[in-house]
């Protein structure tokens, strides 16, 4: 099986010792001991060099209009202020778009495009002084009518880029000929990342005008590039480094660049180190979120609930700039099928430019909206036909002879039916369905609902070039190992997993491997740690680097001890040459004396993937990750209040590299998704101001929102593709398991309505939305 061009002689599934010691064990997070003792350093915790200045942002007071007056005199003369910096002070380009779109200024120059857009910055001796001074500015914005909703943007034909559709067959005709059809509008809310560590960057000027930036980012190479662009430097004059983030979730991919760029700009202007840590309210106002969308859907189906045609148009609120929206919304289209075969299907996407903050990556990257829409359609059809929604879903899954996606990729690894059936069995779905019917028959006010929904999530960046990674491994003469790669740690346990892989490559204990901060100076041109691909890419690159050194050591040992490579094994901190055992550190020392290189880079690119966006055809994903969840909820039909009573999950991580970390990702992803679909609501007012800009008004889940009974099972199976040791990516897919909560709420409300009445349940299903839906179906009763 080994020998692909991507992995050389390495077998991605098998270790040379024939056994794995670190991999597959529930090793604790590498920083756990530091986290519990307060010793783990985030950007704001690192000791500042003497003379460091603090930065505050001066923000636009309006959502749209020309800047007709900017009076900063009072800011400049405020106590403690060292510099006030505007777009005019930028030595390089005032442009930070991650895709080169040319619509993302570092600082607004002649016009503002959303409320809260940075217009200038203040660098002062203290953070307090900077923030107080920033408020003294007079910014006058000329009158203009902002576009604040996708409907308004549609009417004005305001787009960031042309529509993109994935279409198979003839959905229009199939809808006409279908036995039954339904249609509706489904609003889907956005989501604030609320990474607990806000955006932060510390820029320190170096000799030759170079810049060092300590940043909280999932994409150090992008930060490096942006800082270079802004300062007018070649990329090699900038180093960006990140040891860890206090959460990312997609919100520190492109969105970290502006704050690092501003810190670097201030450092350039003042010649002093400059730090920017956004206040939480500013962070929520000024950084992009998950795209809210409006899904307009039409579906045609037969009397058994088999979908014949689906045509869904997504109007996505992209905000004022392009940012990553095109890739995000492509993924909405990719996942509109979720796990279902629909013969005639259209996923149409419209990318609306609005005068709101620029929406961006968020765990799932557009996929959740696509999946939620088709699951909502499934719920509506099941209700209309009085078919158990689980049965309806099972019927429509991909299967033999119906296994090709609308974009032409064969679902070669389809385990959705198996995972769904397992979830049905483990949750006791059938028996509970009966119990819930009995409960609801006796309880007019507290109604229960139950639902099982699947997840099929494509793994790989759909921008094919990003599916590459580099690593750098050194072995020192005492046998200790230094590990570096392009992936970043945001709590997901990437560093731990990669270290496990490297330890097993050398057959040494995990504590001999030193995990080091991600820096553009060690591994260049890295991809963001995103698309769930962190481990797939970086663990393979690191394994390749370690294997190169191991192979050199093997050849050296064979020569030194008169043996052959095939008889040499690295395990238990020793190297076994036939019957002789040599300590790993001893062999390393001998190899050093014999002038053998003990350092190597490793490079990996995902094989087999290709994607032709023009044609809408290809194999954009290396493989799919699957899962299913069963949620039971109780709603109060008088108040709209919601309780999630029980959740059972079966999730596919292939053969897990670290079960404890994977289960943590599944639980956390589910609860975060539950927040998106139930309590987290973003509200903008008529002037385009975000009114939910703090945790007082924006409700993320707390510990008591977690279901009282919460069972997570790993689906035991190996990845059919050659991913690292047969594992599968786990970062994003579990978020979409939470769709079963939305469906269970739908189910609870559906029990109040005759089949002919559609259930108008929006997302998020806040108590208000639940109450609205309950009221609507009661009033609509014929």
């Amino acid at each position, binding site marked *: 099986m080994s020998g692909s061009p991507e992995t050389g002689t390495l077998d991605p599934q098998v270790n040379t010792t024939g056994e794995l010691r670190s991999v597959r064990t*529930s090793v*604790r*997070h590498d*920083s*756990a*001991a*530091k*986290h*519990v*003792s*307060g*010793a*783990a*350093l*985030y950007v*704001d*915790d690192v*000791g500042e060099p003497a003379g460091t200045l603090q930065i505050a942002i001066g923000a636009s007071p309006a959502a749209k209009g020309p800047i007709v007056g900017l009076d900063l005199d009072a800011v400049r003369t405020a106590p403690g202020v060292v510099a006030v910096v505007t777009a005019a002070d930028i030595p390089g380009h005032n442009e930070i778009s991650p895709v080169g779109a040319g619509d993302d200024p570092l600082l607004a120059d002649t016009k503002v495009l959303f409320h809260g857009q940075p217009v200038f910055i203040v660098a002062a001796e203290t953070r307090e002084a900077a923030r107080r001074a920033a408020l003294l500015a007079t910014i006058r914005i000329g009158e203009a009518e902002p576009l604040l909703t996708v409907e308004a943007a549609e009417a004005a034909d305001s787009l960031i880029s042309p529509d993109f559709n994935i279409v198979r067959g003839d959905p229009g005709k199939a809808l006409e000929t279908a036995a039954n059809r339904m249609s509706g509008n489904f609003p889907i809310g956005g989501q604030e*990342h*609320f*990474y*607990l*560590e*806000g955006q932060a960057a510390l820029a320190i000027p170096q000799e030759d005008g170079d810049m060092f930036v300590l940043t909280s980012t999932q994409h150090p190479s992008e930060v490096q590039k942006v800082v270079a662009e802004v300062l007018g430097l070649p990329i090699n004059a900038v180093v960006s480094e990140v040891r*860890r*983030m*206090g*959460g*990312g*979730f997609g919100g520190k991919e492109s969105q970290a660049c502006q704050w690092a760029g501003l810190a670097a700009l201030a450092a350039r202007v003042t010649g002093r180190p400059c730090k920017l840590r956004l*206040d*939480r*309210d500013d962070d929520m106002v000024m950084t992009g979120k998950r795209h809210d969308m409006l899904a307009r859907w039409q579906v045609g189906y037969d009397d058994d609930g088999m979908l014949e045609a689906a045509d869904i148009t997504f109007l996505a609120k992209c905000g004022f700039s392009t940012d990553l929206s095109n890739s995000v919304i492509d993924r909405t289209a990719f996942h509109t099928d979720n796990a279902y075969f629909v013969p005639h299907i259209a996923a149409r996407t419209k990318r609306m430019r609005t005068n709101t903050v620029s929406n961006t990556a968020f765990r799932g990257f557009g996929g959740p909206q696509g999946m939620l829409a088709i699951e909502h359609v499934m719920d509506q059809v099941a209700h209309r036909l009085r078919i158990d929604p689980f049965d309806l879903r099972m019927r429509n899954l991909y299967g033999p002879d119906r296994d090709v996606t609308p974009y032409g990729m064969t679902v070669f690894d389809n385990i959705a039916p198996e995972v769904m059936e397992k979830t049905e069995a483990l949750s006791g779905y059938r028996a509970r369905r009966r119990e819930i019917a009995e409960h609801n028959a006796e309880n007019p006010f507290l109604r229960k609902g139950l639902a099982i929904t699947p997840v099929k999530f494509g793994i790989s960046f759909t921008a094919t070039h990003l599916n590459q990674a580099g690593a750098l491994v050194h072995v020192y003469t005492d046998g200790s190992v230094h590990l570096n790669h392009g992936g970043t740690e*945001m*709590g*997901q*346990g990437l560093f731990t997993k990669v270290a496990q892989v490297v330890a097993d490559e050398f057959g040494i204990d995990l504590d001999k491997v030193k995990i080091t901060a991600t820096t553009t100076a060690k591994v260049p041109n890295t991809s963001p740690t995103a698309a769930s691909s962190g481990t797939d890419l970086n663990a393979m690159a690191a394994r390749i680097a370690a294997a190169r050194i191991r192979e050199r050591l093997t050849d050296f040992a064979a020569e030194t001890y008169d043996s052959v490579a095939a008889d040499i094994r690295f395990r238990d901190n020793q190297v076994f040459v036939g019957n002789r055992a040599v300590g790993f550190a001893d062999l390393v020392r001998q190899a050093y004396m014999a002038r053998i290189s003990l350092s190597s880079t490793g490079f990996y690119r995902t094989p087999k993937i290709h994607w032709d966006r023009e044609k809408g055809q290809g194999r954009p994903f290396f493989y799919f990750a699957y899962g299913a969840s069963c949620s039971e909820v109780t709603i109060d039909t008088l108040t709209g209040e919601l309780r999630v009573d029980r959740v059972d999950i079966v999730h596919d991580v292939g053969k897990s590299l670290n079960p*404890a*970390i994977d289960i*943590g990702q599944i*639980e*956390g*992803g*589910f*609860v*975060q998704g539950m*927040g998106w679909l139930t309590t987290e609501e973003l509200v903008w007012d008529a002037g385009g101001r975000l009114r939910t800009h*703090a*945790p*007082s008004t924006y409700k*993320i*889940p*707390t*510990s*008591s929102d*977690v279901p009282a009974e*919460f069972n997570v099972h790993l689906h035991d199976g190996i990845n059919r593709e050659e991913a690292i040791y047969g594992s599968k990516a786990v970062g994003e897919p579990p978020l979409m398991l939470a769709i079963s909560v939305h469906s269970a709420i739908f189910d609870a409300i559906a029990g109040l309505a005759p089949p002919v009445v559609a259930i108008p349940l929006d997302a998020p299903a806040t108590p208000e939305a639940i109450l609205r839906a309950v009221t609507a179906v009661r009033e609509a009763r014929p």
Partner: protein
Amino acid sequence: MPKVSMTVNGQAVSADVEARTLLVDFIREQLRLTGTHVGCDTSQCGACVVHVDGRALKSCTTLAAQCEGASVTTIEGLAKGDDLHPMQEAFRENHGLQCGFCTPGMIMSAVDMVKRHGGKLDEQTIRHELEGNLCRCTGYHNIVKAIAAGSEAMTSSGRVAAE
């Protein structure tokens, strides 16, 4: 500028601070104890929880001057030398952390919770008590498990009475 004096992690400290200086800034910037984090700036997320005279308190909305003469314990003061406090050990052992940013505040709240309930903590109480501490990795499941385990360890080691 007024002078404040307090005991932090068993050591007497005093400094001149502005009257409006927040306890968290005093701890982080003057004392360079950076394990106490600022998450939301508005006393909702709980990343900044410390103990003042044995009680959990959000240091981002407490003035340093209010703590004149008080005994303050931060996350750095919980361990005894190299020996982690049983609650710290429980979080480490039970994978009660992901990105780790909320962890210090979670642990400080947990220790306080155990003491107030005399070590008798059921899961529902833990969940209810933890509403002032947010975790965005939403690893609450393991956090609750960790607190239950830590509570037991504190009780059996006699730490509840001792602290």
